[in-house]
């Protein structure tokens, strides 16, 4: 199969399927991932192809799901865990933070933890409480974890595969709002770009706009809108949130002199802060304005009929661009 067009959700399905065909140590664990194919249908068809030993509908207990996957990894398996929604990762927080992240180090490298934790993340889907969270900063702070955040079908496929191949644990934040947005995928052509690298997806000169995952289309849309006003934004897709690819971001900021970061998570304590701090330090003499951030407010994610006001949107990003350029 060569290049094909798939929605993001199906690109991940394809990534999972190909990984499972390539390595019979890969297995999937989660709630409703079997016969149902997951509430987002990401594992659709895999149970019928691989059976219930490899596509495991688990009891409803996230700590148990992640904790058993640690044991499976010690035994040589490569578990891919689905957390049903971003807001339900917290019961597994202990296992992720104190076990998944640290087991390799604890054993002085003897044991690997090639576990992938898939988390549909982000808001904007009109959902009830706990279904729209963006907790990436809560994982990025913990050494031992890696985080990937694909924003398009191509990355969704390949990051799924590369996360599974990685000997370290990887949290895969899947942009749930965009699961059904299509894009080209070429499963035969291993990408040259490392999954741990950011990508300049639109060159520009006036300022750099950094985003990831579900916020990428907004970033591009903003750049297009700004271009109509004669402002050329360089748009970067961070892609890897742990590690962050600082060289690519810093190189861009050194060219443009300005950086705006947008993400759905609350600005306060979000990953944007870490990036802003680091870039402010690395690019001090190049910055013509402070690094700015447009993101969620320091509030619990609001009810669906308020979320449009909570989430960054075109107007808010452009407002940020204006403030950035006014400096």
């Amino acid at each position, binding site marked *: 199969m060569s290049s094909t067009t798939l929605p993001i959700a199906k690109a991940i399905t394809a990534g999972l399927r190909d990984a499972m065909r390539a390595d019979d140590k890969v297995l999937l664990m989660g*709630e*409703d991932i*079997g*016969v*149902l*194919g997951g*509430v*987002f*249908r990401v594992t659709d068809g895999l149970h019928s192809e691989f059976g219930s030993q490899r596509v495991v*509908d*688990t*009891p*409803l*207990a*996230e*700590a*148990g799901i992640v904790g058993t996957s640690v044991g499976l990894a010690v035994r040589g398996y490569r578990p891919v865990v689905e957390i049903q*929604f971003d*807001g*339900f990762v*917290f*019961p597994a927080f202990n296992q992720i933070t104190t076990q998944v992240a640290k087991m390799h180090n604890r054993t002085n490298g003897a044991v690997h933890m090639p576990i992938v934790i898939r988390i*549909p993340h982000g808001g*904007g*889907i*009109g*959902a*009830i*409480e*706990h*279904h729209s969270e963006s907790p990436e900063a809560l994982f990025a702070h913990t050494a031992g974890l890696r985080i990937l955040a694909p924003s398009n079908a191509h990355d969704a496929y390949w990051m799924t595969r590369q996360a599974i191949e990685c000997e370290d644990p990887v949290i895969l934040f899947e942009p*749930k*709002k*965009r*699961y*059904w*947005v299509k894009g080209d995928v070429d499963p035969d052509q291993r990408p040259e770009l490392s999954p741990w690298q950011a990508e300049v997806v639109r060159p520009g000169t006036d300022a750099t706009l950094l985003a990831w995952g579900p916020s990428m*289309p*907004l970033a591009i*849309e903003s750049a297009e809108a700004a271009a109509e006003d004669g402002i050329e934004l360089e748009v970067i897709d961070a892609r890897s949130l742990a590690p962050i690819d600082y060289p690519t971001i810093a190189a861009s900021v050194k060219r443009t002199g300005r950086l705006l970061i947008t993400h759905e998570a609350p600005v*306060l304590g979000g990953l944007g802060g870490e990036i802003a701090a680091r870039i402010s330090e690395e690019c001090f003499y190049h910055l013509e304005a402070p690094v700015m951030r447009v993101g969620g*407010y*320091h*509030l*619990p994610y*609001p*009810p*669906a*009929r*308020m*979320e*449009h*006001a*909570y*989430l960054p*949107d*075109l*107007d*808010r990003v452009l*407002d940020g661009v204006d403030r950035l350029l006014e400096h």
Partner: protein
Amino acid sequence: MVQLLSPDGTRTPHPELDAVIAGNGGEDDLASPERLRGYYRDMVMIRAADLEATSLQRQGQLGLWASALGQEAAQIGAGHASREQDYLVPTYREHGIAWARGIEPWRLLESFRGVSHGGWDPNALRTHPYMIVLGSQAPHAVGYAMGLQRDGVVGTGKKETDTAVLALFGDGASSEGEVSESFTFAASFQAPVVFFTQNNQWAISVPTSVQTRVPLAQRSRGWGIPSVRVDGNDVLAVLAAVRDGLDAARAGEGPRFIEAVTYRMAAHTTSDDASRYRPSSEEEEWAAKDPILRLRRHLEQLGEIDEEFVARCDEEAHDLAMQLHHHIHGMEDPDPLGMFTHAYAEPHPIVEAEREQYLEYIAQFEDEGGDENADDATPSRDQNAEQDTAEQNGERA
């Protein structure tokens, strides 16, 4: 499995629970014809509200609906088993519980519509908010019960004030570690709490057999917490078992656990497609055990129900559904400014500053907004995002 009404409506005797139904001597007969008709009416009403909510969701008025169809007896029975002063701790599918507690159905719809995350005062309504993170409410229930112990309203023998907690969770949620920890705390402190599971056979697509290979009722016995398994489609059995458990808890005898065996007749939520994982024959099988029908047959056997009463119930139910319809259709979207109000109880400089920023930001658009709808001064939304929302078909809750 305890059953007081067989599927054909026949009352079957029970060595302990008959006394509970009879009011334990001093109290009202819980199975008086009037009460029985009351339960019937309640179940009819809540089913109508539930169906209306599903249709409201189809009309785009709700983001999601989690139907409790088929679980009416379990919920109405458990709800009426509690006393005024008791505190109930629901999941997100306890519409019958809420009804029995006197909570107006439209209040339940707020969170499904997306105008609040719950929004009622738990202490005023003596009912915890609907809870989404499965199992997380169970320790709250135990903590509340520990508060009751410290308030001296347990085991005093005073019927009007002795209080207990009813903690609800599903068969799926029973696997969450926090539920087990709740058993531990409740047992250790002999807290006045009754755990109540509606084993509706499914946790979305996962059958109860994945959560436990033995009857779920057995779970709590690992902590020495007495338990009972009842027919959850039998309103009297549920009522009696829960009343008995709550009475014991109020009397200071510690926790109990009750498993009500029932069935989730609808899909998990309006986003779910149950045909993907269960045969419709299963639904038909359970339809034959319908809890409303069962009580009606029983009332017929007693000669205590007539066509007129049935018709009046149906009419009232229809009216309720219409009210709900109008209430929801008439509901205005909340001012997003409200999201800044209740993050903290005390002043918080960051939230205040962000609120100010938001107001300033909004004000820009108001100034520009000469040719826009005056009511809608918020900025234009990201059109793409809207589209994706419609496109994505994931389930929620």
